[in-house]
């Protein structure tokens, strides 16, 4: 690829013995918000300190893909805002690509790509294409560099059909793909995505994931992503960090996380005829049989077993009339994590 990767000299040719400088290094990071809460029965407001991020330490190697998950209000966005230099930490320190984010915000913005799922970095009233012209100029890409990269993005994210439409007319799924293209236009070494799949339908989500995987495989970027969808983590990340109330509750490879949690997915099948226990492949197990043998709740791990494989095993034994699949909510996983480590 002919894309302008900005690689710092020491990362360009690392000494074999010399460990790489972490792409992201957070140590004892803290952030308090001061809120003025109304006092009941009084016109005064009481000053109250909310600790949104409480002593988070993380070290992320270049090229790693980390899923940063946790319930609403766990402190994920606050952490990302500090990583990108738009929010000053209350305590602790952090370095991103060797830089101090707040002090070097603008330089850092050339080296990272950021998507805030609930905000837009595109120019609302202009055709989508114009946003890339402006961003290309901002990132000092030559027209050739920009066009080559854009071609790849348009192709991979399937933007062709609506490049000429004003951003405000795009559907959420189209716009989000446009946002990701905007964040990746300058081929950043670090990609930070805050809930990039929020509100998207299954097809859009899958398209986005497929391209993010491809792009990372091609360019070896570091990925840091928050999400409410465990599938994002499963498909994109090799490491998962669970935050709860501003602290790290779990940090480790995705495989051990699965092992740690056992079988988090649940398939509910309604059968045409009642049946007793079904024989199931692998680690899948019947969690419950309801409605006199019509409804079976089967728990299994998404890592070891695909849904089609499980379904064909069931289909060989009985006739399935209806089915639904529930993904584990992040909240449930966090609760499990806490339960297992005896912290609940």
């Amino acid at each position, binding site marked *: 690829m002919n894309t302008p990767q900005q690689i710092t000299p020491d990362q360009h040719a690392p000494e074999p013995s010399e460990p790489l400088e972490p792409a992201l290094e957070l140590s004892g990071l803290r952030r308090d*918000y*001061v809120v003025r809460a109304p006092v009941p029965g009084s016109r005064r407001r009481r000053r109250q300190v909310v600790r949104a991020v409480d002593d988070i330490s993380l070290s992320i190697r270049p090229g790693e893909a980390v899923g940063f998950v946790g319930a609403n209000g766990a402190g994920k*966005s606050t952490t990302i*805002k500090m990583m*990108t*230099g*738009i*929010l*000053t930490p209350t305590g602790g320190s952090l370095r991103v690509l060797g830089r101090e984010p707040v002090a070097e*915000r*603008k*330089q850092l*913005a*050339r080296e990272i790509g*950021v998507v*805030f*799922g*609930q*905000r*837009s*970095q595109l*120019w609302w*009233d*202009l055709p989508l294409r*114009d946003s890339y*012209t*402006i961003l290309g*100029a*901002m*990132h000092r890409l030559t027209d050739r560099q920009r066009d080559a990269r854009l071609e790849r993005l348009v192709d991979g994210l399937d933007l062709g059909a609506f490049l000429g439409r004003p951003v405000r007319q795009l559907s959420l799924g189209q716009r989000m793909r446009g946002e990701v293209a905007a964040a990746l236009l300058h081929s950043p070494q670090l990609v930070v995505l*805050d*809930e990039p799949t929020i509100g998207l339908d299954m097809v859009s989500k899958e398209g986005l994931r497929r391209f993010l995987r491809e792009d990372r495989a091609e360019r070896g970027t570091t990925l840091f992503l928050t999400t409410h969808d465990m599938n994002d983590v499963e498909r994109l990340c090799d490491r998962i960090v669970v935050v709860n109330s501003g602290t790290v509750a779990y940090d480790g490879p995705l495989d051990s996380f699965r092992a740690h949690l056992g079988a988090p997915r649940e398939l509910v099948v309604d059968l045409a005829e009642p049946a007793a226990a079904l024989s199931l492949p692998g680690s899948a197990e019947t969690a419950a049989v309801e409605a006199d043998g019509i409804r079976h709740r089967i728990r299994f791990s998404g890592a070891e077993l695909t849904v089609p494989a499980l379904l064909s095993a069931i289909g060989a034994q009985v006739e399935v009339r209806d089915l639904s699949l529930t993904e584990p909510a992040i909240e449930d996983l966090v609760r499990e994590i806490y339960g297992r480590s005896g912290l609940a």
Partner: protein
Amino acid sequence: MPTYWSIASASFRQYSTYRMATAAGVFTNTIFGFIRASILFAAITTAGGELSGYTIAQAATYVWLGQALLAPIEAFGTREVSQRVHQGEVAVDLLRPASFLGLYYAQKLGRSAFLLLGRGIPPLVIGALVTGLALPEDPLSYLLGAFSLLAAITLAFLADMMVNLAAFWLIETRGLTVVYTAVMNLLSGFLIPILWFPDWLLGIARATPFPSMIQTPIDTLSGRITPLEALPLLGVQAGWVLVLAVAAHLMLRLGVRSMEVQGG
């Protein structure tokens, strides 16, 4: 530079698509021009044909240039930046690898260029045809007038930006905008020429950057003052640009430091 150019031209193109708004703006600008002109004419006629150095023709020029500048200067203030601060969208602006003020200034210049052509020139032409205009004798007046206009747009941008940046500390900036635009419309010499002010008010106005936003470019462009008289006023404008640019920059720095970005 290409960044700011691409933003300015995009902003120009964007505003050029708002045809209805442009037509409506031209219409009201023209109507209000006629109302203002007839009030000033009555005052000048009552005063015996001249009032504090303004003849009928000069008053007409003053009114129509004022109407032409109204849109590009955005004398009624903007709210975009304060809203983006309140909604946390400012985070996106700060994550761009370019100067925050520079980006908004480029956008303002592109927008103002369109507003000047699309909404400023038509009332001026209509006014010229109906009431006539007093045009400068010295061609240098046009050149200096163009510089003065650019400085005025820059000053109006910076002052309006400071009002918007107050959103970093205030939950609501609407009141501030109302006060600012009222003071600005009066002290800039938009409503009546500052020479018609009582001495004490003239003194106050001259101690502020407001006359540099409207009175100075109008006087320069209309040839009511000679190029030689205009030069020191352009110097005053340049001085204010410097002061307000530094102030806006400091405000932004402090604001960003104290910022608590709202929302996810």
